Each structure stands twice: as structure tokens, then as C-alpha cells.
């Protein structure tokens, strides 16, 4: 199960709506091993595409260096689908390379840049196998 706080959830949804019709992407970092998505980092989609996303290679290095300094890891890796359902594509599955991350997909196909509900779903992707998991949105993450 993915447990995520409302503000972070809203931040991901807002980013997806803002970048529609291109795919939006980013991560939520958290302390290593904690499974707590605490720090939302919206990334630039270097592909600027409605059907593909990729972090810019320089941004990627900076991101990982910062996480290293903070003893963090990517707890959530998110991106949006802008014309299809919020389910990992074959490309998503083939390129998933963070075995410990929750892969969050948001679909903006319904309302695009406008207000309105989105599909928000979470998966584990390991060795080509996709397992959907429950998403629990809480007011605040429990205190440690």
C-alpha cells in the first residue's frame, strides 16, 4: 500500500494538470528505508511529449546527489498519461529501474488542464511484473 499525504497528492495532480497534454513526471523522496513520501520534486519532462517522459540527465544527477546528501531515496516515481488510463505501459514496465519505488500514474485524459477528478493509481514494478496496490491518502503522514 502507498500512504501519501493530501498536500503531496494534490501537488502531483496539479503538476499533471499543468503539463497536460504533455506527460508530467517527478518523484517524492523520503528517508531511506522509511517508505515515507515526504519531499515532492516535480521534474522537467525532457522529452516534452504526450506519449513519453524522461528526466533530463543533468537534472537526474543533481536529484540523486541531493537525495544522497539527505540520506533519501525515491519513494514515489510518478508520471501522467494524458490520453490513456493510469496503468503502466509496456515502455513503463520495460524501463522501470527502481525496484523499491511506488510507481504512481495519474491520468488526465478526462479533464485535461481543468478542474475535475483524475485517476491516481500506484504500482510496484519489479522484473517486468506489475502489481497494483491500494493508495491511502491521509491528512498528514503519521509522526515517526
Amino acid at each position, binding site marked *: 500500500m502507498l500512504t501519501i499525504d493530501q498536500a503531496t497528492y494534490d501537488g502531483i495532480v496539479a503538476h499533471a494538470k499543468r503539463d497536460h497534454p504533455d506527460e508530467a513526471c517527478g518523484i517524492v523522496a523520503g528517508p531511506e528505508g522509511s517508505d515515507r513520501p515526504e519531499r515532492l520534486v516535480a521534474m522537467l519532462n525532457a522529452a516534452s511529449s504526450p506519449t513519453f517522459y524522461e528526466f533530463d540527465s543533468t537534472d*537526474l544527477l543533481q536529484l540523486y546527489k541531493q537525495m544522497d546528501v539527505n540520506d533519501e531515496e525515491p519513494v514515489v516515481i510518478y508520471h501522467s498519461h494524458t490520453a490513456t488510463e493510469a496503468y503502466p505501459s509496456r*515502455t513503463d514496465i520495460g524501463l522501470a529501474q527502481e525496484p*523499491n519505488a511506488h510507481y504512481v500514474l495519474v491520468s488526465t485524459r478526462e479533464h485535461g488542464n481543468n478542474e475535475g477528478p483524475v485517476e491516481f493509481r500506484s504500482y510496484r514494478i519489479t522484473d517486468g511484473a506489475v502489481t497494483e496496490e491500494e493508495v491511502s491518502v491521509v491528512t498528514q503522514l503519521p509522526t515517526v
Partner: protein
Amino acid sequence: MAIEVRIPTILRTYTGGEKAVRGDGASLSALIDDLEASHPGIKERLIDPDSNGSDLRRFVNVYINDEDVRFIGGLEATLADGDEVVVLPAVAGG
């Protein structure tokens, strides 16, 4: 000569869980061969199988002292004692 190589989570199965290992080589290509000798299997995860050994995989990023090696000669990029190499899988999808 010693070069520190930072290993991403997904490749730590080849390094006994180590986040960083030491290697040796005057070029990235030589370094990868040296890593392969101590961590068998890792080379195949870095080199594009369709490139006849001449190119990195498209969705693996390698940096030497913070520079993406794609801009400094790819596998032919030169290395010197004390250089830091970082391997990061691309975060990408469709």
C-alpha cells in the same frame, strides 16, 4: 590508480549490496572491463547489446565528475586517478 564508482540500487546485486566500488582504467571502457572482472554480469547491464560493445545502453546514464559521458566521448571518455564515476538508470517511460 583508483576510481570511485557509484552504483545504483538496481545494480547492487552485482556488488554485494555496495553503493560504491573501486575500479581502474584509463577510459570508461577499460573501467567497465575492470568492474566486470570483480563484479561479473555488470558489464552486460551497462553496454548496449546491439552496439557490438561500442555504446552504453540508451537508458543507463554514466557521469564522470558530474559530466554525462555522452558529451565527452562515451565509452572512450578518459579517466584519471581520483575521478568519480556515477551510474544512474534513466527515469523514463511512455
